[in-house]
């Protein structure tokens, strides 16, 4: 199974995302921001980093990259897409996911090992987890506060579209402790914490993040 990893100018965790795909048993395909072609991949990861320096707003400029045109269409057509950190911000800016990410409430960059609760195991990227499972993966960002208006939040809750929630202290002021959400169809998932940094016990705090990548690979095999 071929999973594309997009590199925007300023993407940082693209190598890590590709490594995670390989560790999970998939083939990682690099996709270039300026190339409006998905090269037939079976799923796409938008990695973390500071695309365009996070200038203006995180993800605001990357959203207009040529690669995003086919990506947005494919995502609407059901292609599994995972946005991690900056990738989540790009998905929100592209309106593939609701809400937005703003400056952390403590106004600092924060890097820590973050406990999360997996709330929705029906998405393409979380089917391998048990409902309510607690996992620990790295969180690292300056603008990770998830915000949306009350109606949107209520809708997300009602439809079970909150995918992961911060467990323990809320690290950034995210409304309703939301760490990640999905679209209605469950193929597009975005989250601030970094599952790709928790796939090897040597370099990660845990290997709890691997499930995101094995979930999508298993789903692709099944279909």
């Amino acid at each position, binding site marked *: 199974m071929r999973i594309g990893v997009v590199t925007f*100018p*300023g993407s*940082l*965790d693209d*190598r*890590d995302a590709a*490594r995670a795909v390989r560790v999970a048993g998939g083939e990682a395909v690099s996709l270039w921001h300026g190339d409006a072609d998905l090269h037939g991949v079976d799923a796409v990861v938008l990695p*973390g*980093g*500071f695309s*365009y*320096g*996070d*200038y203006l707003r995180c993800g605001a400029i990357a959203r207009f990259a040529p690669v995003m045109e086919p990506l947005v269409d494919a995502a609407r057509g059901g292609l599994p897409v995972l946005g991690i950190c900056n990738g989540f911000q790009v998905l929100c800016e592209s309106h593939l996911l609701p809400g937005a990410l703003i400056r952390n409430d*403590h106004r*600092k*960059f*924060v*890097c*820590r090992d973050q406990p999360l609760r997996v709330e929705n195991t029906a998405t393409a990227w979380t089917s391998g987890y048990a409902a309510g499972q607690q996992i620990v993966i*790295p969180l*690292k960002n*300056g603008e990770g506060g998830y915000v949306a208006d009350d109606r949107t939040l209520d809708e997300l809750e009602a439809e079970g579209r909150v995918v992961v929630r911060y467990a323990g202290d809320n690290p950034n002021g995210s409304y309703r402790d939301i760490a990640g959400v999905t679209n209605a169809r469950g193929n597009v998932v975005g989250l601030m914490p*970094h599952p*790709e*940094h928790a796939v*090897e016990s*040597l*370099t*990660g705090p845990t290997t709890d993040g691997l499930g995101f990548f094995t979930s999508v690979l298993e789903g692709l095999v099944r279909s």
Partner: protein
Amino acid sequence: MIDTVELAAKTPDQSQPWDELGLKADEYQRIRDILGRRPTNAELAMYSVMWSEHCSYKSSKVHLRQFGDKAPQSDALLVGMGQNAGVVDIGHGYAVTFKIESHNHPSYVEPYQGAATGVGGIVRDILAMGARPVAVMDSLRFGPLDADDTHRVLPGVVAGVGGYGNCLGLPNIGGEVVFDPSYAANPLVNALCVGVMKHDDIHLANATGVGNKVVLFGARTGGDGIGGASILASESFDDTKPSKRPAVQVGDPFMEKVLIECCLELFGAQVVEAIQDLGAAGISCATSELASNGDGGMYVQLEKVLLRDPSLTPGEIMMSESQERMMGIVTPENLDAFLAITARWDVETAVIGEVTGTGRLIIDWHGETIVDVDPRTVAHDGPVYERPFARPPWQDELQAAGPEGLARPSSGDELRGTLLRLLASPNLASKAWITDQYDRYVLGNTVLAQPEDAGVLRIDESTGLGVAIATDGNGRYAKLDPYTGAQLALAEAYRNVATTGARPLAVTDGLNFGSPEDPAVMWQFAEAIRGLADGCQALGTPVTGGNVSLYNQTGDTAILPTAIVGVLGVLDDVARRTPQGFRESGQVVYLLGETRDEFGGSEWAWAEHGHLGGRPPSVDLAAERELAEILVNASRDGLIDAAHDLSDGGLAIALVESVLRYGVGARVWVPDGLDPFVFLFSESQARAIVVVPRSEEVRFTDMCSARRFPHQRIGMVDDGGVLDVQGQFVVPVDELRAAHESTLSSTFEA
């Protein structure tokens, strides 16, 4: 009007502001002698900045030579001092380059940008060697934690280090934070970068090959950091210009990230002969160093430089310290391919000149020659000072006022209170409030990072080959005895690296001192270098490069003499690294090394009594070597599960740090014949604690005995949730954690 070479020859008596530019009368005269005429404005700017202390090392050169003269024989050194950074062979065809750079004064003026551009600058140095930067570290010194100025400077510096490094995608794998009144108004911000390449990819910044193109690429040139040189514009030639250019350089880490990828693609495609980063003195420095390191000359058309501010004068363009710029030497055949790569990365590029065979550096501005010099006279043959130095008269008195008379805790309760207060003291408190602002995960190769003894990186995924790096420096020890103090910094960094299981290989240093014009400071400086060079010889770890920062003082008061030493070590398989935390109940804690009654310069004397006097702990480099071998062998053979070196605050602090890592408990007993206070808080060197699984105890102790290295069984790891120093006191782990972790956050979150 532009001051040309022609005009300069005709107007020998034209007065020039050499004084304001920081040149001495004899230096100005020497420039006239070299040129056989007065310098042009642009030449004056160029010489003044290249002959400054910062660029020319004129006060330090005579001492720094010892690093070369005394360098131990080492097969590992591929490129030694003198280039942008030294290069070390780590095996399997891999080479590593690393270096420290200071950005002290700019970080005081504008903490965020000063620190950010400090990180940016050292990363470009590493990149220029042909290496991919893979991690950064930061070594910081501030005034007292409760000083107003620290509240202005520290958050900005930390945000700047993080803001730049995080955005560049370089994990921060370690550093230090120290508070001392001497750094008030003189904070130290030293950044270290480490890069990796294959042996074949090493590039030296030399301009060779007549006809090769000189290319400037990256950010546009603006008025950054040319405060001094703007004197030339405002005072003598063109009064209509703004008299003050911004001295503050602003960094654009996004530009630098793109520049890194672009440069690595240029190297990889083999379309560039050499790349030089632009740092201090900008184009002046890059052109004169490239030409001087090469075999010919260089011709530059300065008007081809792309400008952000079109009002800059030629002198200012040459001096500008705008960040995120690189200069490349490209053969004419490769130029198109070079430009295609920079275009792909949206990096603006201008061909500004070429390599010549004239032996001269000639710079034209719209067809008129404004610089015509022998580049060596600018870049290499600057003034060299043998500044007078003398052991200060107060040194004896300071050493005589030892810590012997200070009141010591004796009861178990007093020892307990001492421990809790020390844990919360600014220098020993957890630095997590700071390091949590740094990304340590990016690139996915960080095996150990803060709060471990050293940062450990995986270099090669297939073999597990990796490196460990630690930086250390103790200005209080060095104040008491600069020779010993520098060796103590070296010994600690060396020990920290070995503690993780890595074999120490090479050294970089950041020497931060007061004014070299003060003979007492110059003595501290000379002694520190002598100590470090001797120490490196004894440990077999050559100095590969470093940085000197002088004039760190307020009025007549210099900062503590601060030699920061970075040691690089290699691990054949990072899976074997030894972490610092206790984890498994039932394992045995050993103390390695000899504990003496040593409290001169200690954290205890300082934090509890505000006392600094006496002698620092004694150095025994042979013992350090022996200890390192034990730690490295034990890690390789799987004899130990955890290790932590002993340094500031002694055994008690190390124990707490190891216990807190995974929140276990430990029971410890005081060995017979040792005073509990000395056991817990002495700062004797060449010591570490290790945790040995029961099954390996015999093999481990046999190894220590065979080497006649002191080792004592002092405790057990347990899951009781307390630190129990038997017969003395018991403290719950939660109480230890609260004491350790609240100091910085309660200060800066108020």
